[in-house]
């Protein structure tokens, strides 16, 4: 078990999300950076889908109430355990009573704290992810707060096993994922259903604008500012299912990218959709940062997942070896 000592708003328990419940109106939720969540679990030998803490407001502090291994992944940040520095993308063993402190990231938006055995809250509709809007999943369906006692699963690994090593983060390890010099995150998208309804000039604006992620952005969606995309004639859309990554354009013209906690339905014209291989990178883009869109076709979008999958598989294999040393 662990005890939360300090947590600002909107830090929650998340796994890879709730599958197959959109038809009940339930959005998937789940980690905004699923690669970081899965990597933290791989470092510890957990199932990739084990629940962790997604920290997006800082500083965050917790106390270990038992000896256990943990891992820190996600945004590039400073952390200390019992006063000693813990590098980012690292796993180590904590002793009961140790305090872990996580400071604001230098780069990126969300840090994941994974625990040996995973966080052991009940699954609701197949997932431990917190569904904030409906108030279920995670810990009582709400953000973590000081005083919370969070149960963790029983350790699978022998305590004598070696746990003090790190991993290369995916934005370093995967070619093309490294941050650009101009600090604009390139995000690959496919055209979506209503792309063609926008004039050539509007489409050119969509591709050329350096979009700012506005302060009114959260796990539900990113509101973008920088240009306005308007249609020659308004389009009446009927309510339909959407998935994370869809870029919708409301009548006011400023696009919104739906993220993990988005409604299951949308009704605005869809100009594009962020590909799966770039959603985790977008999940690390904080409000105030800039993004630009690049078009890819279906086959390239599918192929773009291969380096991500192989990165995670490689990390797991290496971590298994290290723990066996």
């Amino acid at each position, binding site marked *: 078990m662990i005890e939360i000592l300090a947590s600002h708003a909107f830090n929650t328990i998340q796994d890879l999300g709730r599958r197959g419940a*959109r038809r009940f109106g339930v959005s998937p939720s789940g980690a905004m950076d699923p690669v970081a969540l899965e990597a933290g679990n791989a470092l510890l030998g957990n199932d990739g889908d084990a629940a962790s803490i997604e920290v997006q407001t800082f500083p965050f502090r917790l106390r270990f109430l038992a000896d256990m291994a943990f891992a820190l992944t996600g945004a590039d940040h400073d952390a200390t355990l019992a006063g000693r520095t813990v590098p980012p993308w690292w796993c180590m063993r904590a002793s009961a009573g140790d305090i872990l402190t996580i400071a604001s990231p230098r780069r990126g938006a969300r840090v994941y704290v994974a625990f040996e055995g995973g966080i052991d809250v009940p699954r609701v509709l197949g997932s431990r992810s917190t569904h904030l809007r409906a108030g279920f999943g995670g810990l009582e369906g709400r953000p973590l707060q000081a005083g919370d006692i969070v149960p963790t699963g029983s350790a699978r690994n022998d305590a004598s096993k070696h746990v003090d090593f790190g991993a290369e983060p995916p934005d370093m390890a995967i070619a093309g994922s490294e941050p650009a010099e101009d600090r604009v995150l390139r995000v690959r998208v496919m055209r979506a259903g209503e792309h063609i309804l926008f004039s050539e000039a509007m489409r050119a604006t969509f591709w050329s604008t350096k979009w700012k992620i506005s302060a009114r952005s959260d796990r539900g969606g990113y509101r973008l500012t920088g240009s306005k995309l308007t249609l020659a004639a308004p389009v009446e859309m009927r309510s339909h299912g959407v*998935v994370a990554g869809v870029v919708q354009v409301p009548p006011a013209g400023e696009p919104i990218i739906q993220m993990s906690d988005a409604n299951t339905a949308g009704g605005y014209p*869809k100009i594009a959709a962020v590909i*799966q291989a770039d959603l985790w990178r977008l999940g690390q883009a904080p409000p105030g940062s800039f993004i630009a869109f690049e078009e890819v076709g279906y086959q390239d979008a599918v192929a773009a997942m291969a380096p991500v999958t192989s990165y995670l598989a490689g990390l797991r294999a290496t971590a298994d070896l290290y723990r066996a040393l």
Partner: protein
Amino acid sequence: MSINHHASPFVGVLEKDPKISLIGTLAMLVEAPGEFDLVQQGRIWALADALSSWPNVQEAVVGVTNVMLAFEQPPDDIDALGASLIELWHRLAPRNADGKLIEIPVVYGGELGFDLPAVAARAGLLEREVIRIHSEGEYTVCAIASSPGFGYLHGLDPRIYMPRKSVPSLNMRAGSVTIGGMQTGVAALDSPNGWNAIGWAPVAMFDPRLEQPSLMMPGDRVRFRIDRIEL
């Protein structure tokens, strides 16, 4: 364009294909052609039922005259999949609104039905007439969408259509019976809501502990019964 098969309600008529589009590599949207009507919606339900058991389909999410497929993995051959969907669309018989009948007792008006006077004023009716019209209707659940357990109900009498508010009510209670445009519904969560509250129902629309967490499902029928009137 293709010629319909015999099972279709428009035998021998050239009928447009549904519009098929991708939302990234893991979702595909199938939109029925033409205006909204319950027959097209019934064809969407039938399509969703059939597609739910297709390999690689995680779920089929019913919308208003459309269905979105969420895939486990990106499909290998998108064009072949689209062609199969179109073929199935033309071949399938629509499903009737043959789900369960849900009767919902409503406390009309009062503290939680705070928009009833505005709805009556706009319709040029007495509040009691709005209540009578609303409670005499039979409604069809078209889709569950936008928030957990929230059903889009079709069948509202045009006399009591009421546009959504431009500024949502900040904290509408779960169970609020609402009118939004041409539709009516029952709020499933406490949350901001742009629809107009005309009453409240002591019925849990959503319970995440259940395997089937949503009381309403597409194809169900709904009747509102006057439990009490508070004017």
